């Protein structure tokens, strides 16, 4: 059986080259092409490829982030990264034994990589995406598949017992990331207003005081105010003049 391959690269000539190389490789069959990370996720869900050839540097959602989201799928595909030159990524790939190919890609190497391609493990993904790299989207698992929420659309994260609720412009969803991890990843874009709540700085509107002296923060586009701890209330006022 031939391996179904999805080609992901923002540059048309690069996609074209991979397609013509793969046509000459017996054990591979191209099922689709994508030019962005978002498109790659959609195509993966629709076409169910066995292997995704993923360019590292792409506009918007890059290859490393797309790989992270791909791994949330029910049946994640194997991933092979492709890159022309990216010292930092290559060091991480080598350290984590993650498969990658250097452009211009040689046919023999491509064939060998497709034969031996494996799924990425969660620790591998964490290591290669680095500590400072922030995602452009939050991926949410649904029955129908993945839904992507642009980080700019997120209003707040609320920690519940086991999950985290993410409230965004189009509704609410449950994700598995901890508040702690989200705070580390998005740093200055978010502010912790309470033990269980992280809000997006760009949606902060004003602070109100309830009848019993407790504080609430109102976010743009949210009807229900969120409780603010006493200590954070004064800090918010000073930092954001609200």
């Amino acid at each position, binding site marked *: 059986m031939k391996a179904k391959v999805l080609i992901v690269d*923002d*540059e*048309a*000539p*690069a996609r*074209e*080259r991979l397609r*013509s190389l793969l046509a000459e490789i017996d054990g591979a069959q191209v099922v689709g092409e994508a*030019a*962005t990370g978002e498109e790659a996720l959609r195509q993966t869900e629709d076409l169910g490829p066995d292997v995704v050839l993923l360019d590292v*540097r792409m*506009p*918007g959602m890059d290859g490393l982030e797309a790989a992270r989201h791909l791994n949330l799928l029910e049946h994640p595909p194997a991933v092979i990264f492709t890159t*022309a*030159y*990216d010292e930092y990524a290559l060091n991480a790939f080598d350290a984590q034994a993650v498969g990658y190919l*250097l*452009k*211009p*890609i040689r046919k023999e190497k491509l064939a060998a990589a497709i034969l031996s391609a494996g799924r990425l493990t969660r620790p591998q993904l964490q290591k290669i995406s680095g500590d400072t790299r*922030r995602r*452009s989207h939050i991926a949410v698992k649904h029955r129908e598949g993945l839904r992507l929420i642009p980080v700019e659309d997120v209003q707040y994260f609320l920690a519940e017992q086991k999950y985290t609720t993410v409230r965004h412009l189009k509704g609410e969803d449950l994700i598995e990331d901890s508040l702690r991890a989200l705070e580390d990843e998005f740093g200055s874009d978010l502010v912790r207003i309470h033990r269980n709540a992280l809000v997006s700085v760009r949606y902060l509107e004003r602070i109100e005081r309830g009848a019993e002296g407790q504080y609430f923060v109102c976010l743009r586009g949210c009807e229900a105010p969120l409780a603010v701890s006493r200590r954070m209330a004064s800090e918010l006022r000073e930092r954001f003049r609200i």
Partner: protein
Amino acid sequence: MSAAAGHGGNDSLYLPDFCTSRAALGIVLIVELTAVLLTLARENPLIGFWADLWRTSLFLLWIGLTGAALLCWVGRHLRRLRVARGSAVVLALIAAVVAAISGCAWLLGRSNLVEDAGASVLFPPGLATFLLRNVSIGLVVTALALRYFYVTHQWRLNIEMQAAARVHALQARIRPHFLFNSMNTIASLTRSNPVLAEQAVQDLADLFRANLSEKRNVITLEQECEVARIYQRIEALRLGTRLHIEWKIDPLPRDALVPGLLLQPLLENAIYHGIEPQPQGGTVTVTGEMASDLITIVVRNPVTDREAERDGNRLALANIRERLALMYGERGLVKAGRFGTEYIVTLRFPYIDSAQKLSA
């Protein structure tokens, strides 16, 4: 380091550290030379050359070393001042030291101790003329020394700048990212469109020839624009419709002399940071203007929020800044910064054409 090189003309860093023994030795040397000069010029019949030199040296050493100690003490604050003010403060301090020590010497000459020893001939008679003359001589000698320090410092800065420019030129050469991506494009075109592949190889060769050439330090604007266009052609193959470059440089004199690789690295930065990160691509605008013999070139590209956090294009800018400074001195200017959703680099330098260059 770069701050020192960038603003070398603006602060008093040119003053040496007077706390070092090297500086003290230098001051002793200056003092002794001045003493010899004064003694030779005066030809005092009463006490003879050697005695005169001896007492002048003793007097001047007091002034020199007290002055050095004082400058050592206030040196840290002095260095923060601008050149003109720093120099004025040094002159004032030295004048004060000269006046104070001259005053002491004159008082010593009046004292009983000296009169009893019959040595009053060694000391000056009138206070006012003595003070006035000494302070004037002190100011002239100090001014000469300051000038010497300043020139030495400028010379050293220039050497450092040239060395830095050479190092940065090596580092700022075309990004490997660009080379390997272009190779990949060519590999792809070789199969699908051999004619275009051939042109791309020729373009790449021309670009690298311009990049590797040591001789073409100074080229005409025409030549530089040609290199930039070749670069644009290669990137267009790869980025397709995502890349737009608007050239509005008609007012520029094409025979103007510029340092090589002035525009191409700016375009490279604009594409790498401004166009590649945008899924729909964008437009880089290159505008050129000329007013009263000053050429202004502005390169603008869109920036995304995410890309703005990255900090990779300093090297190319630093290199262009240094090379403009080397070629045009203070008349060359590079400004760069983010304005809203755009990143704008402005170059300004005087128009020098080949005819002028030959006569110079």
